[in-house]
């Protein structure tokens, strides 16, 4: 372990640490542009120069490893002069357009020019100009502002795995460009905006919308997938202006996917801001008061046969509201409740049976990864980035049994039929051998595979193959929370699929849909079923509903969400509810009072106390649980060889009502998903 002195302070660091990192440990700031913690080190911006005793010239501290007895100075006159010289060079071709640049106020170049630069410019010649590029529907480019740090080039190559950016030409003509006009076709492309230290790559939807100092920053949790990525929602007035990632080493590091980052414009469209009741005579929804809507609902629930009432919770629901709905349904004697609206077909006993047990960070300890019935790039893009990172660092062997997927790492494709999973169990060669010999194998079972009719067999097989390395990857934010609090059929109650069938056959009178939109309700719900929809968007659910109770979206409430690892996290309220909309648990509480079975909690804290009393593990915020798995059941039935593995959400950008309402997501979907499908059909059509 080398020992060195930086600015007179002695420090011992691990071998391989750079001077820049060592200085950071001491809290000494060294300016930098090209250096980024999670990317490779090219040392091309020269901003991090320090003085090293014995070296003839200042050295780039980001690329210089610490050595024994080094004496480093980071603030000597010579260093200051070197840095201001580098800054002068960087600013030669950088336009002075800070007043109209979106990065203004949070720009590394601006801040560092202020701190380390000179007080004026000596440059009188013409500045270079570079044309902008169309690299993504979510990224606006101003390449004239580019300082050629190549962070974006390294990001797309190393993290996103789509190497389409490069630094072309040289000298004054050097510029960042894509290879012959290709797009950055990645779910992580939005991170380029954060990675860029200047205003060359900025967010297209946020373009010219706000200044960073006008924004209120709210640290909260994302609900677009099952990972619970940590985000910061920036708000002006009562409007969400943008979404940024927040550092969380165990979940999202410092990345978020484009759906998390750019679907926020969906929060401003198609919103339900007042209750609606379907008019009996005209058959149309009409605005109503809360009083009327709740009376209609309470009346319907009262007169219905309790065994003919069903309640379901959709994909974006928080734990508190689901708990309130469960308590209410149980108190009125209805046993038909279920949170597995996609038809997930297993009834787990212990938490370990349905969690991502190894944890997202645990992926980096795996020495063999088997993906079953999942495309992690679509189901959980950030988790996929973690797999890629591990593959890049350790070259971990990966295999997939499931629908063919275009993943950004090498993997062995073992087929798309459950029979392939069965034969994998018996195999002793190839990847099966690697997996069985692995010390830390990891099987990732996609939640879509558990919606099959033979889910029990798939689940049993996967458990047997995986042993301790069993992980379920949930795609939606509400599922683990729902399973945790037992939002499942009570004593002989019907599950989601049974409820839909009963409804079609006319055996279900009332259906309470809490945020259920991902189902084809025209087909799955019978004409005679009275549908109550509680949610925040006028999507599929509200279209079919007889009564609409307007709830709030994830940015508008403080609530608990449990991610696929079983980590419970608290989201924060960033903006107020729109119009007459109310927080979801309050709606259910009000309904219970109307019905005459008042729920015993008057505020959110009492409700949480009630939850924590029964499910104490949810009170441990931001802790990855060490959940117990139940024993493997041996006779789990037969697999269905005629049914290949499938994905329920083929379009990454269109998975919930918020992103379906988002213009930006629609554009991404058009550019990346639809146009691709068209090309593929054209090719296959031509081949025929």
């Amino acid at each position, binding site marked *: 372990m080398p020992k060195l002195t930086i600015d007179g302070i002695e420090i011992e660091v691990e071998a391989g640490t750079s001077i820049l990192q060592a200085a950071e440990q001491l809290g000494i700031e060294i300016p930098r542009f090209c250096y980024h913690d999670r990317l490779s080190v090219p040392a091309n911006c020269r901003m991090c120069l320090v003085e090293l005793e014995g070296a003839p010239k200042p050295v780039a501290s980001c690329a210089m490893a610490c050595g024994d007895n080094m004496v480093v100075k980071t603030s000597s006159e010579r260093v200051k002069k070197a840095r201001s010289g580098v800054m002068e060079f960087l600013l030669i071709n950088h336009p002075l357009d800070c007043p109209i640049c979106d990065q203004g106020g949070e720009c590394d170049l601006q801040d560092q020019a202020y701190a380390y630069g000179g007080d004026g410019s000596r440059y009188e010649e013409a500045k270079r100009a570079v044309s902008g590029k169309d690299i993504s529907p979510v990224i606006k480019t101003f390449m004239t502002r580019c300082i050629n740090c190549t962070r974006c080039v390294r990001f797309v*190559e190393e993290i996103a795995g789509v*190497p*389409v*950016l*490069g630094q*072309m030409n*040289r000298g004054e003509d050097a510029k960042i460009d*894509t*290879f*012959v006009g290709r797009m950055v076709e990645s779910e992580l492309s939005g991170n380029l905006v954060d990675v860029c230290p200047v205003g060359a790559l900025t967010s297209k939807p946020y373009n010219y919308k706000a200044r960073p100092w006008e924004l209120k920053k709210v640290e909260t949790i994302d609900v677009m997938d099952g990972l619970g990525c940590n985000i910061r929602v920036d708000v002006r007035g009562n409007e969400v202006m943008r979404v940024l990632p927040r550092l969380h080493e165990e979940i999202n590091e410092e990345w978020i996917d484009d759906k998390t980052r750019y679907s926020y414009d969906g929060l401003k469209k198609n919103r339900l801001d007042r209750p609606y009741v379907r008019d009996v005579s005209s058959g149309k929804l009409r605005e109503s008061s809360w009083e009327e809507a709740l009376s209609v609902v309470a009346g319907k629930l009262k007169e219905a046969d309790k065994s003919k009432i069903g309640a379901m919770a959709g994909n974006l629901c928080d734990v508190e509201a689901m708990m309130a709905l469960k308590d209410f349904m149980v108190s009125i004697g209805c046993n038909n409740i279920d949170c597995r609206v996609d038809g997930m077909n297993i009834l787990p006993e212990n938490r370990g049976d349905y969690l991502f047990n190894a944890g997202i960070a645990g992926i980096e300890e795996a020495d063999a990864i088997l993906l079953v019935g999942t495309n992690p790039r679509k189901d959980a893009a950030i988790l996929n980035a973690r797999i890629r990172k591990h593959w890049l660092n350790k070259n971990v062997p990966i295999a997939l049994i499931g629908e063919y997927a275009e993943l950004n790492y090498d993997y062995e494709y073992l087929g798309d039929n459950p029979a392939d999973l069965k034969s994998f169990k018996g195999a002793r060669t190839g990847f099966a051998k690697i997996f069985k010999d692995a010390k830390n194998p990891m099987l990732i079972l996609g939640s879509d595979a558990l919606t099959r009719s033979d889910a029990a067999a798939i689940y049993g097989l996967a458990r047997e193959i995986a042993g301790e390395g069993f992980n379920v990857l949930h795609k939606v934010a509400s599922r683990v929370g729902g399973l945790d609090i037992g939002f499942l059929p009570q004593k002989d109650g019907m599950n989601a699929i049974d409820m839909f069938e009963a409804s079609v056959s006319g055996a279900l009178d009332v259906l309470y849909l809490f945020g259920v939109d991902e189902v084809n309700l025209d087909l799955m719900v019978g004409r005679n079923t009275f549908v109550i929809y509680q949610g925040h968007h006028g999507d599929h659910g509200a279209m079919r509903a007889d009564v609409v109770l307007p709830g709030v979206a994830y940015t508008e409430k403080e609530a608990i969400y449990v991610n696929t690892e079983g980590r419970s996290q608290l989201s924060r309220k960033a903006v107020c509810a729109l119009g007459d909309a109310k927080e979801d648990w309050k709606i259910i509480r009000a309904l219970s009072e109307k019905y005459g079975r008042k729920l015993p909690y008057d505020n959110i804290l009492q409700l949480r106390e009630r939850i924590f009393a029964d499910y104490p593990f949810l009170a441990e915020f931001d802790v990855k649980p060490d959940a117990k798995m139940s024993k493997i059941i041996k006779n789990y039935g037969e697999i269905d060889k005629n049914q290949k593995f499938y994905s329920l959400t083929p379009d990454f950008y269109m998975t919930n009502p918020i992103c379906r309402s988002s213009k930006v997501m629609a554009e991404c979907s058009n550019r990346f998903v639809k146009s691709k499908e068209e090309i593929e059909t054209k090719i296959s059509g031509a081949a025929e």
Partner: protein
Amino acid sequence: MKKHYDLHADYQPTDFSFIDKKKVKEIISRYPKGKQQSAVMPLLDFAQRQVAEENKKAGSPYGGWIPRAAMDKIAEILDMPEVKVYEVASFYSMYNLEPVGKYLVQFCGTTPCHLCGAQDVIKAAENYLGISLGETTVDGIFTLMEVECLGACVNAPMVQINDDYYEDLTPEIMIQILDDLKAGKKVSIGSQTGRRCSMSACGPTTLSEQAKKCGVV
């Protein structure tokens, strides 16, 4: 010197393949296992030479350049992203990314040549051919370019035409060379004033005895 190229242009061929596959294999085998991507530079050069030869055979006036299809092909052979090949090709001035004349005239314009009158030589050639730097004559025979130091400073000013150096130039000699090349006459390479290699212009000033013994003078 700004490099011009247009990867969508009409003259870009849609397809490219190496004719001498054995040579390609040999080039790749020069590099240690796992470092095959290092072969990108000799392969780019090889592609450029192949295009030059094909053009010659076909009677086309144009010389060697690297079409986009060739870069794609090299990326495929070496299993690397296309953009990385493109980065290398656009960085070095010796790779031409658009068709150039049969004779690619690269003037050195760096300090020693500049001091010895390179600008006059360049001007003379420009005036004589009626094109500026970076352009190709209408008949496709000459392309003019200014490049950085080519390392023949002792014999400045100098020019590189295709693979050969022509040194100790004056505007008149330059025009003569262009004329002879166009007419298909043989032009002696190296110094145009008759000096040997980079010996002092007025004959050997030191070690003259040894020079005589070796038959240099």
